[in-house]
């Protein structure tokens, strides 16, 4: 059974995880076609993907770079590297 190397907890069986798919940042300002491409299109070809994995026992999300041809987990990505600012809600209380 596949093992996934958690950054702090060591290898854990893949059955403890839910796959969250490819990580991608929505284009906050985009024309309709660009937006649609973000919603539906994916990096389909084999290669290194940044993906979300949810670890059920600890209730935590992890980001990994994985080689999708070899099924090799290459490294874990700090979430800070991918986070982005929400547009400010000026009208918020």
């Amino acid at each position, binding site marked *: *059974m*596949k093992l996934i190397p958690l950054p702090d907890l060591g290898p854990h069986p*893949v*059955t403890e995880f*839910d*796959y969250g*798919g*490819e990580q991608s940042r929505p284009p906050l300002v985009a024309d*309709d*076609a660009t937006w*649609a*491409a973000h919603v*539906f*299109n*994916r*990096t*389909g*070809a*084999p290669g290194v*993907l940044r*993906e979300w994995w949810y670890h059920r026992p600890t209730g935590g999300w992890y980001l990994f770079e994985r080689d*999708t*041809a*070899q*099924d090799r987990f290459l490294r874990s990505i700090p979430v800070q590297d991918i986070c982005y600012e929400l547009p400010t809600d000026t009208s918020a209380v």
Partner: protein
Amino acid sequence: MPLRLLKFALRGTDAEPRFFPPEQPLADQYDIVIIGGGGHGLACAYYLAREHGVKRVAVLEQGYLGGGNTGRNTTIVRSNYLTPEGVQFYDQSLKLFQDLSEDLDLNLFYSTRGHFTLAHSDSALRTMRWRAEVNKHFGIDSELVDRQRIAKAVPEMDLDCGGDQPVLGALWHAPGAVARHDAVAWGYGRGAWQRGVEIHQKTRVTGIRVEGERVRGVQTNRGEIACDKLISMVAGFTPRITEMVGLQTPIEIFPLQACVTEPVKPFLNSIIVSGSLHVYVSQSSRGELVMGASVDPSVLHSTRSSFGFVEELADKLLDLFPLTGRLRVMRQWAGMSDMTPDFAPIMGTTPITGFYLDAGWGTWGFKATPISGKTMAWTAVNDQNHELIKPFRLSRFTDFDLVGERGAASVGH
């Protein structure tokens, strides 16, 4: 006993013709090049030659004929889909399948067994009724049946499923069938070759030449070919091909696993599918139980097997068929499924002139083989999408005009 057998006995088999050509050189140019020598590619080549009289057609196959998902699926043919688009498309496919052995003069062991999709919950039952209603509207033999009907047809099944998730009813689809999957590819391949199509195995496409948004040719490990029309029919390899022309698609590749038991005397006539238990099973003409589940949960470009898959499958299968516990699983394997967000294929023209896509087959590609070949041939020749495949156009993902086939799944929870 058919006369043909007598002929074999008396005259031997030396005079039997070849199915496929021996290795031959690539020409410099073709009218239409098809990437992928699986069922879809060979069917398309066959119809291009037979129905459209296209003279110079080449099929390029990186491995051997039918070696991809054509030879890896669990051979089920049915048309009891949820959406009108899906139902009409697969109904045409099923009708072509019914005549195919005669058409291709090859016994495909097309065996009408009847197909049960089991419902284990109230919401699943509702979805089955939806499918049945849509199916009946289009004249498809499909109906919602109760436990008694299932018990009568499949007495070996434990309708209580070992105590959890009992079967509440099923969608019964009498025309559901199985066929010898490899033979479908061989029959189309032979028919295409007999009509002048060139078939090149061990020929891998390494690049595609596009000039001014028009296809001009393909590069292969055996040299470059010029062509104005190129059809990609490569299922799990689609993203590698679309990447060559810079085309983005929603397709992601997920492994789909299957396994087979040692052959036993026939006891299971129908095809049984349970979405809730993630099991489908039928018994092949050789006597093996051929079984599968849903796709693996994460993207992977590999045909590796996992042990967890067989464990899970065995556990759920025994809920339905406790009597099969003594049978032994002989072999497991996997294919690479090209999944789309709406569980419907992507077919037809693309923004690149002369580049046609037949992809996104997910776990349903085999049953679409004849009709895909036929409609893609028409589409390539006329450079416009055939009526039946219009709903499956790539641009639906730009227009937010998805096909509702996934609705079946979404309501199933």
